[in-house]
């Protein structure tokens, strides 16, 4: 029995249009609205609520929920389900994300669409399970072995948790790559008012299914039906007899482990299919940047105290602006370069010891001073702490 997305049933299950909701549950709502039909997860604080929400709501829209035996099995199951035609999703936190790295790389190599919600918490190791952090931002880009291109979104509010989960499904279907939604323990457990978008305002993307003659279809090359580096998707069970492997493979999918040219061609296509289109799907918010002399570059939870600090500073006459990254990877180099040419100082507040400050410094190319404002230990920055950086 295959899943068919029924908008009316989904709306009946989600309830009213305006609700007071937790961040984790907003990710569940975003998944259901996108047509997610398979969730495999493992309990971990602070992401257990995503699994619990899915366990309650997914059977009511006729989807499938399984609690797997560990995070490795969860990631494996969502890739398998994606190949059998489902939109699949999992949710975890730091320790689980570290376990998922091998299969995350497998999903990139086999070009499988899936969504991972990482509700970050302090690390390393078990850390502080109930307190939030932003310590996995580099791991999502470089955590798996080998060369990949990562797509990661960082919501700053509960409404964005819902919207960005829908956007994550769209991006993963468009590029056939896993997409991570990097919330954190603070936003994940925060309750705020959200508005569920109407059906007519929702724009959902589906993977392009393979439709051409089975003898002519080549599974791992540029699309044969439209102009894109992303191949059409031969779902299992439709008769295409695809061989999917994590080994380096040639265009037909068979192992070519001793051929340098095949590997180069494959990995360059997998990376460039995303990086070529980066400017078209990048997302960021600019606040008060027109006449700013100092700027915050923030993402996720730290955008909230930064906004308050900016307002305090503006009242005192200091010209401050904020560039809030909504899509953190692939990194928006041009925006940072342009900003660095305009301002004298960039401050990057982060709930880690300084991770995104490094690409910011790299792409500002020495045009201005780049200062890191780290805070670890599970507490968010206070606006007055950030204000001190502005005065200095």
């Amino acid at each position, binding site marked *: 029995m295959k899943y068919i997305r029924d908008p009316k049933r989904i709306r009946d299950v989600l309830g009213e249009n305006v609700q007071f909701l937790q961040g984790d549950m907003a990710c569940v709502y975003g998944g259901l609205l996108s047509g997610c039909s398979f969730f495999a997860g493992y309990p971990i604080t602070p992401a257990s609520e995503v699994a619990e929400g899915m366990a309650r709501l997914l059977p009511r829209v006729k989807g499938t929920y399984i609690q797997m035996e560990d995070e490795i099995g969860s990631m494996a199951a969502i*890739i398998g389900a994606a190949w*059998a035609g489902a939109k699949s999703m999992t949710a975890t936190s730091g320790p689980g994300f570290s376990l998922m790295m091998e299969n995350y790389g497998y999903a990139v190599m086999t070009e499988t669409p899936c969504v991972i919600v990482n509700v970050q918490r302090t690390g390393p190791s078990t850390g502080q399970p109930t307190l939030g952090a932003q310590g996995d931002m580099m791991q999502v880009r470089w955590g798996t072995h080998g060369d990949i291109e990562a797509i990661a979104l960082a919501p700053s509010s509960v409404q964005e948790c819902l919207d960005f989960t829908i956007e994550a499904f769209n991006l993963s279907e468009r590029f056939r790559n896993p997409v991570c939604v990097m919330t954190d323990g603070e936003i994940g457990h925060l309750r705020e008012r959200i508005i569920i978008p109407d059906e007519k305002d929702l724009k959902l993307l589906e993977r392009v299914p393979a439709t051409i003659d089975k003898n002519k279809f080549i599974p791992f090359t540029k699309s044969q039906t439209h102009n894109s580096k992303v191949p059409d998707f031969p779902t299992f069970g439709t008769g295409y007899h695809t061989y999917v492997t994590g080994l380096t493979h040639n265009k037909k999918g068979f192992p070519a482990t001793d051929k340098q040219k095949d590997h180069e061609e494959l990995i360059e296509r997998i990376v460039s299919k995303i990086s070529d289109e980066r400017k078209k799907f990048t997302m960021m918010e600019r606040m008060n940047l027109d006449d700013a002399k100092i700027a915050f570059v923030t993402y996720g939870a730290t955008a909230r105290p930064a906004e308050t600090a900016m307002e305090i500073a503006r009242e005192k006459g200091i010209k401050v602006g904020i560039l809030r990254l909504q899509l953190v990877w692939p990194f928006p180099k041009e925006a940072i370069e342009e900003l660095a040419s305009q301002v004298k100082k960039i401050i990057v507040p982060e709930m880690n010891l300084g991770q995104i400050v490094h690409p910011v410094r790299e792409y500002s190319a020495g045009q201005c001073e780049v200062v890191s404002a780290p805070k670890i230990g599970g507490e968010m920055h206070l606006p007055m702490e950030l204000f001190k950086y502005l005065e200095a």
Partner: protein
Amino acid sequence: MVIVKTAEELNKKYLRDGMWPTIFCNGCGNGVVLEYTLWAIEELGLDMDKVVFTSGIGCSSRLPGYINADGLHTTHGRAIAFATGVKAANPDLHVVVFTGDGDCTGIGGNHFIHAARRNIDLTVILINNFIYGMTGGQLAPTAPVGSIATTAPYGNIEHPFDICLLAKALGAAYVARWPVFHPYQPIKSVKEGIQKKGFSLLEFLAPCPTEYGRYNKLGDVKKHWEWYENNTILIEEYEKIMMYGTEEEKNQVKQMIQVGVFQNIEKPEFFTEYHKLLERIADKGGKPAKK
């Protein structure tokens, strides 16, 4: 209904063009298990568009690459978890998992235990050659006490894993173990395993003359295959001898490996029960039980 009568017709129907002959060494049991699976599928008359093969990493896991059907060659030990996802998204597919002794009982032990416990409708064909063959002959969890491997050069001091007993304890629907030197029982067993609605485990004792045979001085291909004949015994015969045999006979058979069908029961399958759950909550309007 059997349409194909000879090996030549079998290979045209089921194998991918240009992939044969296999990468397996001469005398390897993997090629033989592949044949038995293909004969079983032929006798069942399955639609190859609806069969999906998943596998882990190792010599045994190269098998899906040769078969002309959808194949998923995954990471080491996780084949069963991937297969669970495939089955969940489309329960009409027949999912067959090829895995090895190191892949399933070593790194993949946890996934195996839980898939068997949940009784997911998979057919797991575990090809047991007592060694990690693909990487050069390291010790495997199923290796007998005293055997030699590259990472146990002075003899193995660990006790081996009896995976069929574990599967039986977990309540798997169909559990069987066969050696590969005679074709008819394995083919029948694979048929029963695929038809069974529930978790089926088929363990095949396959010889590895290049690694295991060489390190343990079991001789060439001929002698190695004979070793299996001399050291395996049917479960029913073993029990008969244990009950009625003389002391000498009992000592002779105690060290032998038991083969045959260990368990064949009817048990509710996971996705059948899940769909019943969906119907149950749809009737009641979908309110979950209060905490």
